């Protein structure tokens, strides 16, 4: 007979990977998804997504600039982060990550040069002085947009986009790998981890782009492009169903057919944390949004559509939290479970994540302000008008 065991003395091993790690996983996921959305246009030639193709590239790049800062913040010896490039280890997914996290943004940058070239050339035509020089330089020294340059730009953005696809998948897939290889943690140790991370990344990224489209993209008449948003919503709905299917496989095999240590996971997730995981993360943030996205009558209630997309994004963040922090709340040797609530300020505090978001928002504003990302020329027409009226005003003053 198994005795009733009371732990009297044991060391407590708290949370070593703090909440910047879920934030990092979340951001790389957004980047991968945004890149794949841009590839729909640049690689697969789907014109429906062209209005957000450049915006997606900007999102993919900027979140990937902000994301690795989380990793550095979580190191014990932050000043040594660069040694990851010369102290390498083939069996450590974290070592692969250092190279993925540098190669992939460079690829986006290269693709961006060709994707934005025509826009810069048009800007160069209208600008003067130093700005003209800058725009011409950014347009690769040529301020003309001809059929020939368009063909070349398309060819290169196609090629770099195609090379970028496996990198985008790898840069997020490897984060799932990081957790999946840890056999000491039963919640993490599943071959499904990279897959479930990738699919939930697509969920968060599509929802994120849907919200940004609603906020920032306007058609020629200055209206919200609901047709495109509906298209994203349907894509989101099906991606959520894929996500839920993978979860079903993962949890059902874990629940009914797993070895002993997985039973702790079941107790932790489905009993102690039933509200966080089942009610909020799965029901409110996945099942209900999927219903809203896939039923046209519900989708047309526009506030409901946008709210559902927001909830989905938050839900994926919660999934990252529940996985990274939850996995560590199940002790490896100790009895029971740990409870973790992060401090607000200081190292490993909530404000680190807030600061990371703030930094991304800053980058995003900077990039969308400077780069000609709108597919229609509306913005340029607007500036033309203001420039003309400024000239007229000057003329009038004289």
């Amino acid at each position, binding site marked *: 007979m198994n005795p*009733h065991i009371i732990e009297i003395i044991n060391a407590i091993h708290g949370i070593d990977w703090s909440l910047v790690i879920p934030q990092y996983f979340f951001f790389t996921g957004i980047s991968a998804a945004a890149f794949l959305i841009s590839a729909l246009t640049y690689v697969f030639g789907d014109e429906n997504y062209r209005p957000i193709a450049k915006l997606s590239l900007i999102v993919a790049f900027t979140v990937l600039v902000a994301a690795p800062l989380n990793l550095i913040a979580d190191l*014990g010896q932050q000043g040594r982060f660069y040694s990851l490039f010369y102290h390498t280890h083939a069996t450590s997914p974290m070592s692969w990550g250092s190279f993925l996290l540098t190669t992939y943004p460079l690829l986006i940058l290269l693709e961006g040069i060709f994707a934005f070239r025509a826009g810069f050339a048009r800007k160069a035509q209208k600008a003067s002085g130093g700005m003209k020089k800058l725009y011409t330089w950014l347009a690769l020294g040529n301020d003309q947009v001809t059929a020939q340059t368009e063909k070349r730009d398309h060819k290169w953005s196609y090629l770099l986009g195609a090379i970028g696809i496996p990198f985008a998948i790898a840069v997020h897939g490897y984060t799932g790998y990081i957790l999946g290889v840890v056999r000491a943690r039963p919640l993490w140790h599943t071959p499904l981890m990279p897959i479930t991370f990738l699919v939930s990344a697509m969920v968060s990224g599509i929802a994120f782009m849907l919200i940004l489209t609603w906020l920032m993209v306007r058609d020629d008449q200055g209206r919200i492009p609901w047709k495109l948003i509906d298209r994203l919503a349907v894509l989101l709905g099906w991606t959520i169903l894929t996500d839920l299917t993978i979860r079903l496989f993962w949890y059902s095999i874990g629940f009914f057919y797993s070895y002993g240590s997985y039973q702790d996971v079941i107790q932790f997730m489905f009993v102690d944390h039933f509200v966080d995981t089942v009610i909020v993360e799965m029901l409110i943030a996945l099942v209900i949004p999927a219903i809203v996205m896939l039923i046209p009558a519900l989708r047309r209630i526009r506030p409901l559509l946008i709210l559902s997309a927001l909830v989905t994004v938050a839900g994926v963040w919660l999934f990252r939290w529940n996985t990274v922090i939850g996995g560590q709340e199940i002790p490896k040797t100790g009895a029971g479970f740990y409870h973790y609530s992060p401090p607000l300020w200081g190292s490993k505090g909530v404000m680190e994540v807030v600061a990371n978001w703030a930094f991304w928002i800053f980058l995003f504003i900077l990039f969308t302000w400077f780069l000609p990302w709108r597919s229609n020329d509306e913005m340029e027409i607007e500036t033309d008008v203001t420039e003309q009226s400024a000239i007229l005003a000057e003329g009038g003053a004289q």
Partner: protein
Amino acid sequence: MNSDRREFLKFIVGGAAVAASAAAVIPKQEATAAAPNDPSDSTHRWGMLIDLRKCIGCQACSVACSMENDVPLGYHRTIVSTYELDFGDTARRATLPRLCNHCENPPCVEVCPTQATYKRHDGIVVVDNEVCIGCGYCVQACPYDARFINPETHTADKCNFCVHRTEAGLLPACVETCVGGARIFGDLNDPNSEISRLLREHSTQVLKPEMGTDPRVFYIGLSEYLQAKVNGEPVPWTEEELQKELAQL
């Protein structure tokens, strides 16, 4: 380290740049990186046997270890986990000294991104805290809760069988101090060592054998319900409370 750094700079300056994918770099490093500072050879294979029948749970080993290795307050390289086992009509106390298992297949080593932690030829798993970046991956990967991030060095820390003592022919501090003689340290390669003899003569257990780590810390008299994550009531304090208490000291 310097030669590594020079190589790194050459690599960057040489224009190969990061685009010359990870695959090209990793095997080259692999060849040179196997334990550069390892003075040991494989004639010895150090291991420990803990005879739980002799352990009285006095924590003298925990204290000796912390003093010998200057382990910060609130952290442990070894600790004697203590349990009350209630069988209904009877109850008894169980003790379980925990430390790094110096596994034959250490999962901490394979995940370390910088190879700061490695297994020496004599089997002792060590951390080079001048290379360690404190990412905590090894802490996650260890199935035995043997590792922690040292708040003073900000790098991974753990039992190293008191390598500075064993290299000088001394016993690890915990073994030296053990009141009941429950901890036996020795050379597993030497068939005449006390540990080899006891391993031959007794049935022994290891922690979490299903992890496939092949530990080199063995136990005599380890109950199966203490072998993996203990299924019972947790210690009546939390990490937060512990940190508060420590802050007051």
